[in-house]
């Protein structure tokens, strides 16, 4: 490396290339190792900082700085509310794309729409949710800051992802299954409901769980739809509208935005631990179903 002189013989050039090749490999080992270490450090540090602040009281208290009971409830409530329309529309749309649509303009339009919608920044979907659900197109209140408004906004935000994962799940079902169903005289609708969808269930579960992880972790789209209020009095209610409710992710943001006190900072890292555990748990469960799906169709 220290001599910049060009090597004279072919053998010297070859030796130089071999050396460069070794350096190249070492650099890639180091960079990948560094990236992995940093990513693990992000999770490890948050756990180390937050774990000591966790207590049973933290899970059942509705005090804004010291507990996350309302936030836990709201997270799951909004998750379920948003998954219902998303699963229904997302899977149906994927069925259309995989089973009905022919190559052509319609499919191109659908591809364009899903790609473009999934690239819209989540804060903008949040503002749209504010316009459509929180206010009546900006003219007076509709549902105000509410968990239904937040859930529907998240459904809009994640529909393209749900469609994509559902499409993957349906495409993974072998064509031979459909052909067998048709050969038995089944109609298209019977084939879809009795053969394709049941066979795709593990894949659909994977998709639904990965999207659930995104819903649980979303913040920007919720701040102006389900609101940032702690809703400490009477949080355990199922009111869809007029009652705001912050999720765990929004709670972390709110504790940052409202001049953090030391107690709030402790609550922040502790909430982060719960949030990471939830999201990673959901994603790992999704991977588990994915493996079951490949096992089923590869016959191992």
């Amino acid at each position, binding site marked *: 490396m220290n001599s910049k002189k060009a090597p004279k013989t072919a053998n010297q050039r070859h030796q130089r*290339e071999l050396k*460069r*090749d070794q350096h*190249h*490999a070492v650099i*890639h080992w180091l*960079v*990948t190792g560094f*990236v*992995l270490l940093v*990513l693990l450090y*992000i999770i490890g*540090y948050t756990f180390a*900082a937050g774990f000591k602040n966790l207590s049973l009281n933290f899970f059942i208290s509705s005090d804004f700085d010291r507990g996350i009971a309302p936030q836990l409830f709201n997270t799951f409530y909004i998750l379920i509310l948003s998954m219902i329309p998303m699963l229904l*529309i997302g899977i*149906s*749309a994927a*069925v*259309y794309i995989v*089973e*009905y649509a022919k190559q052509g303009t319609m499919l191109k*339009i*659908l591809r*364009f*729409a*899903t790609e*473009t*919608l999934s*690239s*819209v*920044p989540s*804060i*903008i979907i949040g*503002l*749209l949710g504010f*316009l*459509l659900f929180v206010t009546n197109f*900006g003219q007076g209140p509709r549902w105000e800051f509410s968990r239904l408004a937040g859930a529907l906004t998240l459904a809009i935000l994640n*529909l*393209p992802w749900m469609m994509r994962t559902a499409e993957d799940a349906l495409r993974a079902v072998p064509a031979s299954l459909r052909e067998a169903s048709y050969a038995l005289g089944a*109609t*298209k*609708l019977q084939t879809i409901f009795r053969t394709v969808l049941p066979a795709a269930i593990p894949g659909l579960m994977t998709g639904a769980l990965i999207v659930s992880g995104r819903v*649980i*972790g*979303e*913040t*920007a789209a919720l701040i*102006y739809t389900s609101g940032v209020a702690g809703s400490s009095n009477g949080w355990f209610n199922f009111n869809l509208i007029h009652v705001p409710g912050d999720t765990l*992710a929004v709670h*972390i*943001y709110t504790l*940052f935005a409202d001049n953090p006190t030391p107690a709030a900072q402790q609550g922040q890292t502790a909430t*982060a631990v719960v*949030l*990471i555990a939830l*999201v*990673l748990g959901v*994603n*790992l469960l999704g991977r588990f179903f994915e493996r079951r799906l490949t096992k089923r169709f590869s016959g191992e």
Partner: protein
Amino acid sequence: MITNLSKGRPTIRKGATAEFLGHLWFALSALVVVVLLVLVYYFVGSQSFQTFTQSHISPADFFLSSNWDAQNHLGISYFIIGSLSLVLLSLVFAVPISLAVAVFISEIAPKWLKYPLLRAIELFLGIPSVIFGLFGLIVIVPLIRNFLNLIAGGIFYNGYGLVPAAVVVTFMILPTVATIAYDAMQAVPRELREGSYALGATRRQTISKVLIPAAGPGIMTGVILGIARALGETVAVAFVIGNSQHLPFGLSNYFPYLYIGPTSALTTQLLFNFKEATVGSPLYNALWTISFVLLVISAILVAVSRAFAAKRIY
């Protein structure tokens, strides 16, 4: 579908209505995503033009002025510069690193390491942005603050600004870019690599002269998706950018003579200002215009990424 004419009167074959209704339901569900896209563009677009029609701000002043005062004057040029420099700096960090990771997993890693590594990187796709923001706030910002003040020999920097935001965004878009680049490299046929090795090329030469050019368009779609994510990222950036109406960088009296203090991006302006905006006020309209700017840029990015995807050979 009308088949049974035996009784002289057409009757619909059993189940045909159900078949038709099923088809209709699935087709309408697929159309929902198109309707939503039109809704997003219609509402954001129509609201955004009120800055120029209702609030009577000239477009030139709005986009070129740097003076942002919620009550009197609205100019967003600093926020545009903030967002663009954030995207650029994140790319400078993220593209080489994620390419290296993709090359490593695809070409260099031993077989037993490949799959777990890929799974680990994919798992980080799911980590919420608020976690990255919090990490930036409690780790990256103090780190940069201490480092800058150490080399400047005093307390001149509070650590917030463009650099921590770019670091945070880098780690957020890295898994996206790396996994897409990895997929593009895997799609390059074996024969190309074998041809290169047969000509006596080393692995380094094969990777840089054959593999990366062949996977180029696929890698670019990943990079552009990364740009879109960096541009639209809100909460993680809001934690560390400092939220002030300054250029992201400038000259400073103190070493390293480069001011890199608190600044703003388009998305964080939306986040911080929307709660104070009353409906119909110039501020409210201006925030919708900012949204529309973001919307248009992300639509252009999608178009560019589709152009690269169309150029893919493998």
